[in-house]
């Protein structure tokens, strides 16, 4: 596609090349992801949607270096991913906060693990918490917080060491619709303010359209890329775009992919 003599394009932040995954289990091989190619630019917000079991989490875990692909390779920054690397912060489906740590100590965990200078990162952790609307909760324990607040703490923890990339696996799946919309707005603000590259998995198509620069639709297991949509609505978006014609049209187009699966 690109002419060789073209001016140097900015290299992608994440480059996924022919990556496939087959789980080897006692009962035989489980092909989970067919070879896929995807490149994600620096600062881009990519959202992945797809039917349950199509390999979304698998893809995220491979990008994080928690698991090796069966085929192909993943490059993050200018390194090929072989093991967990410091350029990512991950938010899992559940908040996964440590109950014996306070909110602040939970957010500081990556700093401790990586032995970064505490004095330098402590103000940063506090700033992140207040940005997430959690000022005053620093010394509380996770179980004294609501589900939505816990998930916000998890997002702060993923950002504290200032990774280039934010990986999120259905981070708001357990939240009610209203909290979820508010969290979406907050996530968008945080991502734009910190200029992170974001990779988010969701089952909610409106969430995908609201947040994404690009939406990747995966097909059923073993997943492959069924379509990629650019979201033409300029960011930052307000929550009222949820009713706009462009928004509705795009959600319907994406929903059609899954309708076809059901019929």
């Amino acid at each position, binding site marked *: 596609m690109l002419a060789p003599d073209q001016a140097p394009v900015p290299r992608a932040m994440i480059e996924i090349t022919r990556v496939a995954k087959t789980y080897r289990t006692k009962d035989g091989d489980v092909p989970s992801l067919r070879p896929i190619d995807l490149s994600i630019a620096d600062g881009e917000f990519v959202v992945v949607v797809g039917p349950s079991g199509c390999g979304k989490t698998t893809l995220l*875990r491979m990008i*994080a*270096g*928690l698991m090796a692909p069966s085929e192909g390779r993943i490059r993050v920054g200018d390194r090929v991913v072989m093991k*967990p*690397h*410091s350029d*990512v912060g*991950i938010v*899992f489906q*559940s908040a*996964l906060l*440590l*109950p*014996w740590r306070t909110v602040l100590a939970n957010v500081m*965990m*990556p700093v*401790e*693990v*990586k032995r970064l200078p505490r004095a330098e990162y402590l103000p940063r952790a506090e700033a992140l918490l207040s940005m997430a609307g959690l000022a005053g909760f620093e010394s509380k*324990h996770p*179980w*004294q917080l609501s589900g939505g607040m816990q998930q916000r703490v998890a997002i702060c923890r993923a950002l504290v060491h200032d990774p280039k990339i934010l990986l999120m696996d259905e981070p708001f799946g357990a939240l009610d619709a209203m909290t979820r919309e508010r969290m979406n707005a907050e996530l968008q603000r945080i991502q734009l303010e910190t200029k992170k590259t974001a990779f988010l998995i969701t089952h909610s198509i409106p969430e995908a359209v609201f947040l994404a620069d690009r939406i990747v639709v995966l097909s059923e297991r073993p997943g492959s890329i069924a379509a990629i949509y650019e979201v033409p609505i300029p960011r930052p978006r307000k929550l009222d775009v949820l009713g706009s014609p462009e928004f509705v049209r795009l959600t319907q187009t994406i929903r059609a992919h899954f309708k076809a699966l059901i019929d």
Partner: protein
Amino acid sequence: MRGLQMIVGAPWLKPLIFLVLLIVLWDFTIRIFHIPPYQVPAPVDVMVTLWQEWPRLLSEAVPTTIATVYGFLLSAAFGIPVAMLIASSRTVESYVYPLLVFSQSIPKVAIAPLFVVWFGFGMLPKVLAAFLLGFFPVVVSAVQGFKSVEPELLDLARSMEASRLQIFRMVSLPYAMPAIFSGLKVSITLAVVGAVVGEFVGSNSGIGYVLQRSIGNFELPTMFAALVVLAMIGVILFWILDLIERLVIPWHASQRQDLLVAA
């Protein structure tokens, strides 16, 4: 009215009320069925003996308590590391765990005399007997605790590039703490039994020795008084351990209520 309710609601009072009830029942049973005092002494006789022999019983309780505590400390000091090894390596588990379970089927009461043969009369055989009885519950609970760590939490730590030692210190060990403590609580009560068994077979001091001699002489009130002292040793040690647990893992669910009140 409220004051009365508070006294009745006090947590230490309920088992006491129950105990008094049991003692009354004991007294009635003896009277109704005319059980002779050389089979079961009356509660009053036991209490009188307890009162009269208190100084002697107390001084005999000292070696028993010391043997129990040493045996218990040994089971914790060996049990927890052994559990760590078993939980961290499949190989170690497959070699060691079945043997450990097998060894539990050997009645320790039967091998206690062997300790006397090896180590003579004195502290050591008692401590070893207490250790033998206390060891297994610590291992079983701790293994279960280490193994029940959520795999996602381990992934989270791995994604921060945590070393094995860091994962153990920051995630696995605190996560296993509640299970370890429940094992320790079983262990300390069994260690009391172990110490007494040790005194049965080879000692001329301690509550176990008093028990054995009073049975031999048909001094049933003394024997029952010794049992009461023994139970008190168990309860007090258990209670101390409970207190330590509250200090070490104040975040644990079973203790949260207090913390909430304190906060």
